[in-house]
């Protein structure tokens, strides 16, 4: 279940990043439309809430909260690194 919670955290962070023009452009070649941006933000909030709920269910209020925050921070770093990788690969492809 911890893996599911972490996957949810990564998905939430990915949604938050896609709501940003730079990262959306890196992945899809254009900035997100306003409705799509709102959708990504909503999905990000839902994913964060789900990650928190899964951890609270597994670890209880005290430890679950710390685990959820740790997972969200870890997911944020992972998404940042993945986006950098994607952007670099995109730059290399466009140069060819």
């Amino acid at each position, binding site marked *: 279940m*911890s893996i599911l919670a972490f996957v949810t955290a990564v998905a939430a*962070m990915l949604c*938050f*990043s896609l709501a*940003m023009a*730079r*990262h959306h452009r890196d992945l899809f070649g254009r900035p997100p439309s306003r409705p799509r941006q709102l959708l990504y933000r909503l999905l990000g909030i839902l994913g964060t809430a789900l990650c928190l709920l899964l951890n609270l269910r597994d*670890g209880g209020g*005290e*430890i679950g909260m*710390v*685990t959820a*925050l*740790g*997972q969200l*921070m*870890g997911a*944020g*770093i992972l*998404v*940042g*690194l993945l*986006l*950098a990788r994607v*952007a*670099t690969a995109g*730059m290399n492809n466009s*140069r060819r």
Partner: protein
Amino acid sequence: MKLRQSMTTLHTWGGLLPSWLLFVVIFTGTLACFDKELEHWMRPALHGSSGPASASAQQISDWLADNVSAPLHAYWIHPPTERTPFWQLGWEEDGSGQRGRAVFDPVTGAALPETLGGDFFFTLHYNLHAGQIGMYIVGLAGVFMLAALVSGVIIHRRIFKDFFTLRPRAQGQRAWLDAHNLFGVVGLPFHLVLAYTGVAIFVAAYMPAGGMVAYNSDPLAFYHEVQGGYHRNELDRPAGTPVPLDQLVTAAQQQWQSTDTGWIIVEHPADASSVVSIRRRDPSRIGSPQDTLSYDAFTGELLHQQQTPPAYRGYIWMVGLHMAQFGGSLIRLLYGVLGLAGCMMLVAGNTVWLRKRAARQTPGLHLVQALNTAVFFGLPVASLVLLWANRLIPAELEHRASIEAWSFVLTWLAVTLATLVSSRQPLARARALLGVMAALALGLPLVNFLTAPHSHLLVTFGTAPELALVDLTLLISGVLLAVAMARYRPRQPVPAARKTECGESEVTV
């Protein structure tokens, strides 16, 4: 000077000057998350032993009586647990205050060969192995870190816009600034909480004046009242016949309706006032319960049951949150990853400082470059050499732990000296040290295979995952370091137009 300008100055200098010390504290703190796993790994004599745990607390206490002749102020014993499958014993001699430590096989009760163990990194983390002065130095570094974190938030204009931004191919210092921001901002709650709790949990030791005035210069009285604990002053009368420790442990377990026994502490065992205190262990909570039962060592009478005041429970919660001994391996893994993010934040921040000033040839540039290499590379190299020494030093050698410590210190000194006298470019130096680290990390599982027949990956992979994970982490780290070394090769100068397009990827450490 505007707020943002003054905060920029504070962040730059308040971050740079303690950064090498902070790297030591954060890196060793990250390793200390796994101190018990490392300790287990560093004791290969335990890995082949099998059978039911038959040694007892009394057996450990008897070993102490047979092997330590000096009168003792106190000694403490911890039974085996899942993470530390061995008996632990520590003692403090009366008068001199000299401390000792020994560890025992849970099956036979035999003393194991000495090693620094994971505790070495933990002590380096909180006091640099320099006692009270070291604690003050680390505390001061923690305060600087808090100031740098808060000022960093104030000066970061695009904290949300650049939340996930990392452009490794960007120009000049931009890539490193991105890395500094990513690891700093995303991990900010962790860095803030750990820096704050790290300082706050030692506040009574840092600023003892209030307690000393209120308790007539008797810090023990202060601590006992704060903790709701129990203490009996020495009577200076000869000790009677002690009740076997195992009997008291059984009584405590019956009282708690639980077999989770923590530290067993025997105070002034050679005096008629001797008290045995037994603590309950509960790793399922952030703040461990301070359920300590104190018994008369000679009659077995229950003298006191600790009633922890709410303020102390709050304090213990902060201690637990900092120490990461709760919630299993997932919590330790997260703390480890975020601790490494903290290390990367420091490395990237220092590189930004260097690259901003590289063109101007600012005074002190070479000193910062040399310190960066000596600390950011020297400490990991020395830590790996310590693990090599653990496997290569014969088990029967006297003062084995001291030799391990010397191997660590001398390696770090060697890297520092080599950095200072080397005429190589920083990039070439970084590459060479990345290669050294990769070789040390990749070679360690091999040395393990050759020197410890019950401890290597082929044996532990299916049977002892906690040991296998240490070797696997070393292998993965070695591969990543080798890849990093291969990637950071000196580049040929490129035409200005192309350089603008591609950016740089030089490392200036």
